[in-house]
């Protein structure tokens, strides 16, 4: 049984101008200890998916359909208090900007100890010990003295380490990392990603790593889900998706990443841009930009289907049904 199972999730935003569907029939699962990368452009719906799992979807957005199961139990329809008990203890989260994630008026020790004491029965002294341990694990030097420092006294990379400590201090089973390195210097990004990877592997924590940076995914993830316009375009093991992408969007993505192995005249680009949520074309959302699109693509929306490799993709190119003629 997978640790996390998202099936047919739909997230809607009622606006003045009508109902916007930001996440439309998204399904995936994460096993224990696995790292699933969720990659896509800004606005593809990756963050919203993550937030809905941990129950922090901001109104007026709401889950309009589908199920989210954690360890077999449905969690998307739980009352607030029950969900709160799962948050932090079972499912943790890390956000993009470490500066704004920490309360500037409290020392990091106070914030750590508070979290630890909320979810365990440890005494204040024991909690403090655990907090210092945690800081050491994430690589903060001389944790016993720095534990009483305030967030503004740390550099960006250090702050994100503190954030990671806060998220992992009570050993959740799953962590949702929403663009954890985007706000950091490039030189620090690698360190933080390595740290996250190591810690999660040591504690057996599963990770849903949301990012738009393919390089990070390649380094860290076991499997990757590619999202486009609120839908999943392709899911599969990282190596397969990167080396042998099946969905034309993924193909385009991989082709546009500059490589060190040979020179190119121009960076490859996918024509056009991702449609806005209120202007998604019928059929396959990618069809206006797809070099292989045919009639069926403009009419029927494809579900995730087998592609002959280890990944699945939502693309009619892989439909073996004889009923759909005209496959190129």
């Amino acid at each position, binding site marked *: 049984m997978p640790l996390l199972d998202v099936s047919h999730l739909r997230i809607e935003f009622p606006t003045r101008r009508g109902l916007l569907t930001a996440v439309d029939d998204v399904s995936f699962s994460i096993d224990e200890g696995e790292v699933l990368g969720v990659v896509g452009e800004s606005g593809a719906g990756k963050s919203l998916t993550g937030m809905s799992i*941990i129950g*922090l979807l901001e109104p007026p957005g709401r889950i309009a359909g589908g199920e989210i199961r954690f360890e077999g139990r449905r969690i998307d329809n739980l009352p607030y208090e029950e969900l*709160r*008990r*799962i*948050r*932090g*203890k079972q499912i*943790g*989260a890390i*956000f993009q*900007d470490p500066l*704004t*994630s*920490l*309360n*500037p*008026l*409290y020392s990091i020790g106070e914030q750590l100890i*508070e*979290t630890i004491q*909320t*979810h365990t029965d440890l005494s204040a002294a024991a909690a403090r010990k655990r907090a210092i341990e945690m800081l050491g694990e994430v690589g903060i030097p001389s944790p016993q003295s720095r534990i009483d420092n*305030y967030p*503004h*006294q740390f550099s960006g990379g250090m702050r994100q380490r503190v*954030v990671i400590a*806060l*998220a992992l201090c009570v050993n959740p089973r799953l962590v949702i990392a929403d663009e954890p390195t985007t706000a950091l210097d490039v030189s620090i990004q690698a360190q933080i990603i390595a740290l996250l990877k190591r810690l999660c592997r040591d504690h057996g924590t599963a990770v849903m790593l949301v990012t738009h940076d393919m390089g990070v995914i390649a380094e860290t993830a076991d499997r990757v889900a590619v999202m486009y316009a609120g839908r999943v375009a392709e899911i599969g093991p990282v190596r397969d998706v990167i080396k042998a992408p099946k969905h034309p969007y993924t193909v385009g993505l991989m082709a546009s990443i500059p490589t060190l192995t040979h020179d190119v005249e121009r960076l490859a680009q996918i024509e056009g841009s991702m449609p806005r949520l209120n202007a998604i074309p019928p059929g396959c959302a990618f069809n206006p930009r797809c070099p292989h699109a045919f009639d069926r693509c403009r009419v029927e929306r494809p579900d995730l289907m087998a592609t002959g490799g280890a990944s699945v993709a939502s693309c009619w190119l892989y439909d073996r049904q004889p009923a759909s003629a005209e496959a190129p």
Partner: protein
Amino acid sequence: MLAFVIRRFIQAVVVVLVVAFLSFLLFNFVGDPVNNMVGQDASIADREEMREALGLNDPLIVRFAHYVLNAVQGDFGMSLRLQRRVGTLIVERMPATLELVAASAVLALTIGIGLGVFTGIKRSHWLSRVILTVSLIGVSLPTFVIGICLIYVFSVLLGWLPSFGRGETVNIGGWSTGFLTASGWQAIIMPAITLSLFQMTLILRLVRTEMLEVMRTDFIKFARARGLSNRAINFGHALRNTLVPVITIAGLNIGSLIAFSIITETVFQWPGMGFLFIQAVQFADIPVMAAYLSLVAVVFVTINMIVDLAYYAIDPRLRATVGRGR
């Protein structure tokens, strides 16, 4: 840290001097300064003496220096209207104003912050909506209208509370207080409510806005993601962060109370400095006006400095970055 305090102090002194200069101009060039010093009933000989003493032919800067020196010693001239020393008048009236301001401040802060927090946390509660609507009306009610209404209901119609004066006061070492007598308390209720209402609504709306802002921040989101209880989030994290800017406002609030006390004192004929000032304006009593101006400047500048220092003590970010200036 010390550098910061010294810098602020120097700024404060500069401001006070500027205002004192304006005050000096008022005193010496509007109306007759000799009158201002000795009063209209003084004899010719006294006037001549005063002209000499005032050194009306001295350069401006010397006259200004004299003015400041006199002021520091408490000599602000003579009230044209009452023929008494201005300094004495002000000292007599101060306790009345200060007690009124204190009572109003307590009311405005406790109720304002309390209700502000409530409406910030329970946004959609029906009581919140009621409070907000009432507060909107509160902001639109001029202070004197509130006073008149209260007088009409509680003095004219019901006869429960006095409509003017302080009631009986007790003199403790030169300070006449109204807090020790029943009639003193009865007399201060309506003026205090009147004076505090405007500030109360302002504080309420400010605290609410701040609270709402804070609730939308990332660190609150992260706190929720860590599974912290609502109580910890609302009162531990959100409230602390909300109160930091509220401190500034609370400080300025005292200043506002002093300003609006002029109106309240007039409506209730409360014998404080504000009432004295209004009578001075009606009568064109320059010395009193000039003195009030200087005094008010000192008070406000002091309040601002205290607020700055308090801010400093509360927000750890400022302690580290003081060198960069604010």
